[in-house]
């Protein structure tokens, strides 16, 4: 039973109050302002929706990291997706939040308006049916996401293989969280006392993949769920660890996160995919932070089967969007000259404003004119 279902609103409020008071008391002991980062878009949204930044004492600050899969997907990927979408012989299947993400010159949604066959799916597996019904078309699923989504794309490839489908492909830009955490910690501009670790990623990976935070960097990390009380619990654990000079990986989401994760998912992903260096929007290339299809599954990789001619992609251009620094928690959306002016949810310039899980979108929706923007 979830906490929200088990406790009355008044009880939840009381527990939240106790946790916040305890967090404040522990942070006081540290004698400085503590800074914790969440690296999952669902956490970002939940924190803003519940007003957790505003609720916390002055000496505890929250920053958002690169946790929204759409937001870290580079322009070039969108440009490739758009180039494929424009082909007569292609049907694109995708999660809905990819449609409005800007590429260099346009978006999938503009391509769709111009006649491209782009279909929103709930599950990558839905692409199988589209492929079966359209044997003369190449069906391409836009495989974007973190460790939680990778096995669903990989399982779809295995299902296509089993069904003998010859016209289903992946355009892959999957990302892995641990290498991005390393990059953040190694960046001298990024100052973080601990991480709220992603709940759904950990369901698949388990908790051991984050152990390096403890052993190599002496930085605490706590896995947690998405209800406001679960997030406060993780902040209590993190603050307590810092106050006591500890740095451990803890799990406050034991109801679904097991130390070993989901072994079947991990095996399925690693059967189809292998780690590769990958580009993150605004951050750059991070070694071994992406996934590419193994030799044995190249027949399902659209970039192998139908490579795009180099001249077909637009040259990159600068927009003044500070998404990269926002994703690292170095600047807040307010520091970006475009935020709230040229860049708003209805006309987004950067991906952090496009996705509902983006930091800028969350600031815009839950912050504008109402709160004092957390403790910044």
């Amino acid at each position, binding site marked *: 039973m*979830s906490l929200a279902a088990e406790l009355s609103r008044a009880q939840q409020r009381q527990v939240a109050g*106790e946790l916040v008071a305890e967090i404040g008391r522990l942070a006081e002991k540290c004698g400085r302002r503590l800074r914790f980062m969440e690296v999952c878009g669902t956490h970002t949204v939940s924190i803003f929706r519940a007003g957790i930044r505003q609720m916390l004492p002055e000496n505890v600050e929250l920053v958002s990291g690169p946790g929204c899969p759409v937001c870290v997907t580079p322009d070039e990927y969108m440009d490739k997706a758009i180039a494929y979408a424009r082909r007569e012989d292609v049907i694109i299947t995708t999660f809905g939040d990819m449609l409005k993400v800007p590429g260099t010159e346009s978006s999938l949604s503009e391509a769709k308006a111009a006649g491209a066959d782009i279909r929103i799916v709930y599950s990558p597996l839905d692409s199988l049916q589209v492929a079966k019904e359209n044997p003369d078309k190449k069906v391409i699923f836009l495989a974007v996401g973190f460790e939680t989504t990778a096995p669903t794309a990989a*399982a779809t490839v295995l299902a296509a293989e089993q069904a003998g489908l010859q016209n289903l492909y992946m355009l892959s830009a999957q990302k892995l969280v641990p290498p991005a955490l390393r990059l953040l910690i190694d960046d001298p501009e990024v100052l973080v006392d601990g991480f709220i670790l992603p709940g759904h990623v950990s369901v698949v990976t388990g908790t051991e993949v984050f152990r390096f935070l403890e052993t190599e960097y002496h930085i605490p990390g706590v896995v947690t769920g998405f209800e406001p009380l679960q997030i406060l619990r993780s902040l209590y654990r993190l603050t307590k660890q810092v106050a006591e000079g500890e740095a451990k990986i803890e799990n406050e989401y034991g109801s679904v996160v097991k130390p070993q994760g989901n072994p*079947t998912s991990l095996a399925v992903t690693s059967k189809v995919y292998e780690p590769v260096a990958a580009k993150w929007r605004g951050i750059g290339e991070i070694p071994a932070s992406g996934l590419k299809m193994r030799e044995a599954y190249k027949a399902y990789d659209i970039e192998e089967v139908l490579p795009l001619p180099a001249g077909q992609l637009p040259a990159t251009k600068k927009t003044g969007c500070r998404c990269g620094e926002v994703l690292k928690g170095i600047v807040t959306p307010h520091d970006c000259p475009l935020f709230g002016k040229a860049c708003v949810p209805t006309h987004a310039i950067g991906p952090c404003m496009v996705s509902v899980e983006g930091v800028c979108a969350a600031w815009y929706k839950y912050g504008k004119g109402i709160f004092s923007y957390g403790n910044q």
Partner: protein
Amino acid sequence: MELSGVTREVSMMLLPEAKVGDHVLVHAGFAMQIVDEKEFEEMNALLAEMHGAPRTVNELGS
């Protein structure tokens, strides 16, 4: 699979160990993990711990 009152087909390919009647976490049409109903106990244990009781929740889950 019933999702908040709506019935939808969900793939069990990534969670073959789940049985009929289990509560599962679903992501993108796939069951990803069996949900243990221990959230409430964990919260109570944590509150007791804040009031000075020894820690009873495992550090890395069960």
